[in-house]
């Protein structure tokens, strides 16, 4: 970010990280290192010596993991660009609602999402039924194509939102100037959109790659069998089938290194944020004609792909929603507690690391890197490692709530920073000098300069964190206690007790809660009316 403007007087306006924020950032960094390295170390410590080894099947798992994660990231982001472009340029009734709903797949629990996808693309799904009705042969979703469909379904929404924010940060003045200069589409792409995309696309690729890296149940079921074995499944096997902790730790290490390499490679690719001075004015009207048709097509197709499976989840759950058994309703409270705590932790974590990435001198890249790779270790290893660390000290059941909230917050941190950091940097690049020359103190600078520009991405990020936490069925399974079940746990139990219809109702309830939490926080924190164009 120091590329912003190398004025000799830089030190005059560039702020220093205050001591309180330094302490916060250090605490967050320590916590994240404990989560990743500590958990991995704990698992290794409990392992029988010399048990680890890479088997031939692991190479196949490594190859498949890399292939599916790379393809999922490329396809999700490639499709997200035209969709985000169309959404950024067009205004139509229901646009805001559409953007919110199109974000829903990302926050759905994976089992629910898979059911929705199969209701459309499965052997017995609507698409195959329509093809049969038209007299065409059907298609099979099971295979690499299925894994990709599911991962794009999950991640297209996130990629779209991240890129949409990039578009929203293009100052209206640039677009007006481009229009005044008579830029055609190509020139506009070269001078405005291309450079903006080089700032946001590598980050979006990295996020999606990291998410898909640890996928296993979804990859297995849609991948059609052991061909679709990912490293995370191999880790699962090492734990549960062989109880070989050394092997599990080794595989988790390989998986973490893959993620780290991807992050480093993509960081080299991305352009640094530049000062794009602008006055936060509305954008000029976009081109009509062909451009309009292309945008309409992009929005329609993406909406159909993302919303039809959701509609199926809603239709299946609706008749059973009101009749849900009491324990399901009781678990809602527990889920709200976990999500609430998780959001608070996420806010503290992203404030600490975000501002450190902005103002800490030499430590800034470290703060950013750590935040972006908050959960590189395998979720399975983190859960087990924490269990090993906690067990001698305290009854794990007592930790179920805080540990789940903490891991959920760490899960959401990379997305949160991807959303918040660019806005912070932009605000700093645009207004830091002005703020310094006016002699604003740290408090006033945060309140008057940064917060108004941060609150929309912050609302988005914290809303996302709440929704993710609401739907997560990860570490809590290891720490769970009777009576402290969360909604995803109850959903899982209903499915395990043949109660498919109640499970469909519970899935809908979970969808409503996740989406509700997301919208509420985004509105509450982000403010009702966008001051800036875009998201």
């Amino acid at each position, binding site marked *: 970010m120091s590329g912003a403007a190398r004025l000799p007087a830089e030190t005059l306006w560039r702020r220093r990280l205050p001591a309180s924020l330094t302490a916060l950032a250090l605490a967050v960094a320590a916590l994240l290192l404990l989560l990743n390295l500590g958990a991995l170390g704990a698992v290794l410590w*409990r392992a029988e010596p010399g048990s680890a080894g890479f088997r031939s*099947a692991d190479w*196949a798992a490594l190859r498949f993991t890399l292939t599916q994660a790379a393809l999922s990231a490329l396809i999700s982001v490639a499709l997200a660009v035209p969709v985000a472009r169309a959404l950024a340029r067009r205004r139509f009734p229901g646009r805001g609602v559409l953007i919110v709903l199109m974000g829903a797949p990302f926050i759905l629990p994976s*089992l629910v999402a*898979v*059911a929705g996808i*199969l*209701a459309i693309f*499965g*052997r*017995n799904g609507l698409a195959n039924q329509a093809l049969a009705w038209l007299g065409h042969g059907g298609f099979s979703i*099971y295979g690499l194509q299925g894994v990709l469909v599911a991962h794009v379904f999950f991640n297209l929404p996130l990629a779209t939102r991240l890129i949409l924010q990039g578009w929203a940060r293009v100052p209206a003045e640039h677009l007006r100037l481009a229009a005044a200069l008579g830029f055609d589409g190509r020139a506009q792409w070269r001078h405005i959109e291309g450079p903006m995309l080089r700032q946001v696309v590598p980050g979006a690729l990295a996020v999606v790659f990291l998410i898909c890296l640890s996928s*296993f*149940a979804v990859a*297995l*079921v*849609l*991948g*059609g*069998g*052991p*061909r679709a*074995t990912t490293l995370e*499944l191999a880790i*699962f*096997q090492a*734990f*549960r*089938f062989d*109880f070989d902790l050394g092997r599990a730790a080794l595989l988790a290490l390989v998986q973490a290194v893959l993620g780290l390499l991807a992050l480093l490679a993509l960081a080299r690719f991305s352009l640094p944020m530049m000062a794009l001075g602008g006055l936060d004015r509305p954008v000029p009207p976009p081109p009509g004609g062909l451009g309009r048709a292309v945008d309409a097509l992009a929005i329609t197709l993406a909406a159909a792909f993302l919303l039809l499976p959701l509609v199926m989840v809603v239709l299946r759950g609706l008749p059973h929603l009101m009749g849900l*058994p009491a*324990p399901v309703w009781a678990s809602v409270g527990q889920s709200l507690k976990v999500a609430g705590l998780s959001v608070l932790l996420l806010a503290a974590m992203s404030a600490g690391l975000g501002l450190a990435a902005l103002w800490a001198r030499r430590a800034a890249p470290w703060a950013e890197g750590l935040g972006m790779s908050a959960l590189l270790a395998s979720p399975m290893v983190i859960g*087990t490692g924490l*269990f*090993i660390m906690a*067990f*001698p000290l305290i*009854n794990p*059941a007592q930790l179920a709530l805080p540990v789940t909230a903490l891991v959920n917050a760490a899960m959401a941190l990379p997305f949160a920073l991807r959303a918040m950091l660019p806005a912070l940097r932009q605000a700093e690049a645009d207004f830091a000098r002005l703020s310094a020359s006016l002699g604003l103190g740290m408090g006033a600078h945060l309140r008057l300069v940064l917060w108004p520009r941060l609150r929309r991405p912050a609302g988005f990020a914290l809303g996302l964190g709440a929704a993710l936490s609401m739907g997560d069925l990860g570490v809590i*399974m*290891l720490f*769970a*206690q*009777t009576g402290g079940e969360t909604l995803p*746990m*109850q959903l*899982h*139990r*209903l*499915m*395990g*007790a*043949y*109660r*498919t219809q109640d*499970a469909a109702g519970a899935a809908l309830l979970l969808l409503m809660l996740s989406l509700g939490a997301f919208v509420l926080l985004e509105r509450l924190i982000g403010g009702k009316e966008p001051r800036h164009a875009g998201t």
Partner: protein
Amino acid sequence: MRNPTLAAGLLMATALAAQADTPVLTVYTYDSFVSRWGPGPAVKEAFEAECGCELNFVGAGDGAALLARLQLEGARTEADVVLGLDTNLTARAAETGLFAPHGIEAALDLPVGWDDELFLPYDWGWFAFVHDRERTPEPPASFRELIDSELSIVIQDPRSSTPGLGLLMWVEAAYGDEAPAIWEGLAPRVLTVTAGWSEAYGLFLEGEADMVLSYTTSPAYHLIAEEDDTKAAAAFTEGHYMQIEVAGIVAGSTQRELAQRFMEFMLTDGFQSVIPTTNWMYPAVVPQGGLPEGFETLHRPEVSLLLSAEEAAERRDGALDVWRSALAR
């Protein structure tokens, strides 16, 4: 009260004292056992009514996760009893040295003999492929017929699911050296493999696949709870592999006597009568009232297959390699 903090403290102290008088028996089990829809709540009530103790169920994933958790905790575990391992896990469980002999001689209603000094069965079932009578009126009657059919099946991954591992052992027990050929024949029939039982069963109910690997008792759920008689288990002439679910006393338990009482209680009506319509399995000892109405409609295989715990442990890794290479093509 002038000093509410003190009052609260006193109240808590009395509550703690009352608690300390009641011994607590901690039973680790799998998640679906403790759920509201599983046997847990009724078993807890029945045992607490007669033991003068508190029964504390701790749910930990499924059978394999349960054992992994016990191994993680080692000798320091809080568990007094572990309930929910099956015969594919007992060899590994015995190896940990964490279990103590139960010393119970009981007449069990199992199709096979039982002689294990560490583990005592509480329920059992046969694995089977479940189908919908209307969609598949003439199901295959053997693995070979299934191979020759056009039907699609969903199975579970043996690496992450106990029924998945059960199928692996089923093919091993029925075909031995021919198992690789059977798996190669089955491969095109396998629509997909899921990580757990519930996902596979869900796919079947949605109509994604014609058959799903489950239990001969699965149709009883639909019949009894949903009054739906369309689901049935296909009878295979090779015989059906069994799953026997067992419990064992943890050697380091501080409540050995109570644990022993629980194991004895486990085979009485208070426990056994709950099993058929919550766990949807056969009780290890048929309760006095017999099996619930509807169970008589279920297919009862003439041949029950079961590898001994040692044999199952020995053949597991080889069978897994066969499975993986046949299905990974």
